[in-house]
């Protein structure tokens, strides 16, 4: 469906996953491999449909392990490539995510997560060793279209994987959009890529996570490679991106990210209208986390709350940022829908507003109706350990 508003380019109604795919193609993505898994499945469907038309290739990988491997190979030839899944599927890919960082391959990874419980996975990683991925968390489809293109740029800029953290809402919300190709600064040619033409010349190349290189060429060694990557990581921290609102006189600061941030911002706007001095910090990059912004926001505040749909993951980063200047309270919670794929009943402006107001007025957090019966209680044999 297309529609044209006066003075606007023609817009097309499309679901978020299609928009993310079209943004990827606009960014020059030539290869995608994935394995279906709700709520990521539609991203794969749109790549399978749209990428071949655009001169690229989409493979229905037989597993997530193979999907990430295929994208690895495509990237090594210098083309832009991506893979993705839900957090569950990304768990399978963690070995590759760690080693891709050592191989300095610019992979873009989509996580259409089942909620926000993959924050640790995205920012700490489940893989081995010291590595970081830049993590971009759009709040809606419109921002997703920009951040996906930024993801491909940043991946190449740093030769490091970049993860786009979405969810059921981002993947499935329909919006009328125009996919505009964004312009980014020029990047150096990928002289590190291999295409076979240097084979037999004495100057063949290799793309490897190991510290080895071709005989006669300078080599890191395993020891040097680890040092080299470890010194790159802090430099990538300058890519921090954050949005803030109503912080100037805020007594209460709420930190929130992704789709739920839009709900939180709306609730805060309502509370502001009632005269409550509440502001927010929305990390757009989950890594690097905007510690400085959170620190400054907490400096004049009485309390800080972290709202996220998990058992409390980002709250760790909030505490690091706040650095003891104000008490930090986790005001979110685990909340999935009946299927386990989408967001649960906590993602509701009324529920969120009540929780923020409870924090703001130093009251106890309200219990989510229906969740009490699932509260874990200590059994007699566990009392001892609890002392």
């Amino acid at each position, binding site marked *: 469906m297309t529609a044209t508003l006066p003075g606007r380019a023609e817009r097309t109604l499309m679901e978020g996953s299609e928009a993310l795919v079209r943004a990827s193609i606009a960014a020059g993505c*030539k*290869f995608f*491999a994935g394995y279906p898994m709700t709520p990521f499945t539609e991203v794969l469907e749109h790549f399978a449909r749209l990428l071949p038309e655009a001169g690229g*290739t989409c*493979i229905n*990988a*037989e*597993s997530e*392990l*193979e*999907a*990430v*491997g*295929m*994208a*690895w*190979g*495509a*990237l*090594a*030839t210098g*083309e832009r*490539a991506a893979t993705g899944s839900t957090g569950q599927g990304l768990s399978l890919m963690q*070995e*590759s995510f760690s*080693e891709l960082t050592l*191989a300095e391959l610019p992979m873009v990874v989509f996580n259409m997560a089942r909620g926000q419980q993959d924050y640790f996975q995205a920012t700490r990683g489940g893989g081995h060793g010291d590595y970081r991925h830049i993590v971009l968390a759009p709040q809606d489809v419109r921002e997703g279209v920009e951040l996906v293109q930024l993801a491909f740029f940043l991946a190449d800029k740093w030769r490091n994987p970049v993860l786009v953290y979405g969810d059921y809402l981002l993947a499935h919300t329909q919006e009328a959009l125009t996919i505009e190709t964004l312009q980014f600064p020029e990047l150096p040619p990928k002289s590190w890529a*291999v*295409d*076979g*033409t*240097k*084979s*037999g*010349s*004495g100057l*063949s*190349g*290799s*793309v*490897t*996570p*190991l510290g*080895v*290189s*071709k*005989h*006669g060429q300078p*080599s890191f060694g395993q020891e040097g490679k680890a040092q080299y990557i470890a010194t790159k990581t802090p430099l990538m921290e300058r890519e921090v991106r954050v949005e803030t609102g109503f912080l100037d006189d805020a007594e209460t600061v709420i930190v929130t990210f992704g789709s739920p941030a839009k709900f939180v911002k709306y609730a805060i706007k309502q509370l502001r209208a009632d005269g409550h001095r509440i502001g927010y910090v929305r990390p757009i990059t989950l890594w690097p986390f905007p510690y400085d912004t959170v620190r400054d926001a907490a400096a004049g505040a009485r309390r800080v709350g972290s709202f996220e749909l998990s058992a409390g993951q980002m709250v760790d980063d909030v505490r690091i940022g706040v650095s003891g200047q104000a008490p930090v309270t986790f005001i979110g919670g685990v909340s999935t829908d009946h299927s386990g794929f989408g967001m649960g009943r906590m993602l509701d402006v009324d529920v969120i507003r009540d929780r923020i107001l409870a924090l703001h007025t130093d009251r106890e957090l309200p219990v989510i109706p229906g969740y009490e019966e699932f509260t874990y209680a200590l059994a007699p044999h566990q009392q001892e350990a609890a002392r």
Partner: protein
Amino acid sequence: MSTHTPRGPVLDTTVAPAAARIVEALRPELLLTQEHHMCPGCGEPLALRGFLDTLSEMGVAQRSIAVAGIGCYTSFSGTMDVDLVQALHGRAPSVATGVKRMKPDAVVFTLQGDGDMVNEGLQEVLHTAARGEQVTCILLNNGVFGETGGHMTATSVIGQRTKNSLDGRDAEYHGYPILIGDLVSRLEGAAYVARGSVHNAGAVARTKKMFRRAFETQVERRGFSFVEVLTMCPTGWFVPTADGPGYMNDTLGEVHIMGELKVDGVVRTTDELRIENEHRQHEIEAALARGGLDT
């Protein structure tokens, strides 16, 4: 009286020796150095020479891309003068798929061991073959994890002693070896499947022809191609270096039967291969009796 019998020809010291051959001249064009870190008696350098020379002879060297797995042979990644992508343990066929889809004119091959391909990444090679991916997978099969110091793999044969099957591989306790070439040959997408070895000169020459047919299959885009090479690992087998080839032939060679398992889409059974091999052996013996082999 001495009972010692010389084992080799006695040098004639009454005449000047023949000019020494320059070893460097025998270095494959696609090797940057002859140095390697393999153990004495290892079969992997022989296999390496076989496929590198084949790429040169076919004139496709300058469009070839290797994807290496993780094992002893990984050290070849720095000495092969071939553009290379290093994969994780077991993942080379998927990586090769991504490479080939982006560079369809390149000759893309994986280099994997039995631990890499048949243990860690079994599904990768099967799926890549089933997809009919236009790549060549090369398996160096010595039936043992050589790099870790001699441990049982999925291709270790029954009775094989390793550091984690001390009394020999017992079918009841450890299960049976996987005959990977046979498995791959059953898949529709696999166009050419062969199992060679490097335990003697004849086998080396025969295996080199297999490499040629496999790479030709890829160049002509006829489907997935696969060459399994049985290689000696006397260190990992805990046998004297010189016993490696014989041990290989008597153990691995008796289970993983050599020969072309699939040519032009036609699968050949183990029995057919055994008969062919016996026939070849008779021919060789007859030729030797006549005074020598042509090739």
